């Protein structure tokens, strides 16, 4: 391996930082939109009226996971052209699956007896949802968010292929010119981002989880 410390420092301090903000956006915006779609959808799909579809929707989600990330990124560009927006849409779709999957699994996994007991005490459907189902399924839901965040942070590197900018530009430059320092620097920043997101979500989780459930 042809590694130069000075070139690595240059890559860390000057070549990569301009792409940080773009990459953060490429992760946070799709994640936010995906969560905004997946949570209500998950809640809706576990209501009594739709419950019989839960299994089928789940298998659609599982099948969706077989589409390779590279293909998800690439699929939109022939229709929407090159650029930032197609990349955002593709990443949103990509981020959606783990969140939706875990929301569904989390809500469906709340023990029937607990819901029954809550109803028996006179809680309305809305109260059962907000005071029983959501708090109990939160750990599973958050772990879906974490998985999604980590996967999206990595996959966003591929956005550079379709003109979506981000840290991928640094990494691809490194691959094309055989510059290990560039690859390392880009990877390091993406890793740090993924780690920060993971920690942030853990912190969020610990703040809203009742202490006895930890």
């Amino acid at each position: 391996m042809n590694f130069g410390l000075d070139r690595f420092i240059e890559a860390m301090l000057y070549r990569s930082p301009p792409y940080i903000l773009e990459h953060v956006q490429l992760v946070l915006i799709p994640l936010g939109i995906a969560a905004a779609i997946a949570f209500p959808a998950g809640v809706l799909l576990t209501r009594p009226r739709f419950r019989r579809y839960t299994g089928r929707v789940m298998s659609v989600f599982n099948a969706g996971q077989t589409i390779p990330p590279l293909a998800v990124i690439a699929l939109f560009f022939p229709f929407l052209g090159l650029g930032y927006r197609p990349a955002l849409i593709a990443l949103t779709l990509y981020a959606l699956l783990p969140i939706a999957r875990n929301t569904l699994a989390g809500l469906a996994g709340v023990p029937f007896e607990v819901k029954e007991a809550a109803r028996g005490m006179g809680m309305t459907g809305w109260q059962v949802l907000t005071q029983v189902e959501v708090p109990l399924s939160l750990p599973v839901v958050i772990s879906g968010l974490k998985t999604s965040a980590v996967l999206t942070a990595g996959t966003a590197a591929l956005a550079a292929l379709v003109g979506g900018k981000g840290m991928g530009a640094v990494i691809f430059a490194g691959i094309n010119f055989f510059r290990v320092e560039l690859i390392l620097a880009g990877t390091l920043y993406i890793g740090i981002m993924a780690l920060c997101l993971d920690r942030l979500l853990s912190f969020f989780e610990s703040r809203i989880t009742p202490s006895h459930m930890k």
Partner: protein
Amino acid sequence: METAAGVVKFILDNSGRIAEYAGNHFSLVLTVLAFSLVLWISVGLFISRHDRLAGGVIGLANVLFVIPSISLFGLFVTIPQLGLGRSSAALALILYAMMPLVRSVYRGVKSVDRWVIEAGRGMGMSEMQILFQIQIPMAWPVVFAGIRVAVVMITGMATVATFIGERNLGRLIHHGITRGNAEMIIAGAVVVALMALLLDYAMGLIERKVTSPGLRHGDRDLQ
């Protein structure tokens, strides 16, 4: 519909090339799977017996998993002994498979009801007999969930290896992007997805063969 017809036409017109790419893709996935299963199931079993190592090993697997696939491929290419092509691609994919496999084996073994183990020990089963006759057979459902996640993931990520010289289905997507050819991209995505589904299905069949009917009751759809 126009696109769908275009995709079918593209696949028919290029069946020779697609078959070659699919063959390469499949052999890479199978190679990675074979090595990963032997390596990571052993590691998973090992840390389930040595809990002090578990945190570190699973932490390492998580860190590896955070590295974007394109970076890991790119980094291995720059190592002269590996270079462009199969060994770099295989090594990177094997490392990715560590997280789902090691974690599921560890979890599977650890989730075995302690009273079943207590009963086994109380009847005079040795630690090895408890491992091979109780813990491993009872862990299969959890382990297979991990194997299936890993298979689907490896098949999808293998497409990225096209950037380091693998002539596989990722090439259709890669070239589709550079030429602005939607049919080509979709054809690549569809064939990869089919391959992933096929492998997932095959793993499901093996799971049914391996897992005792005594463990297959109840609703496992949502796990």
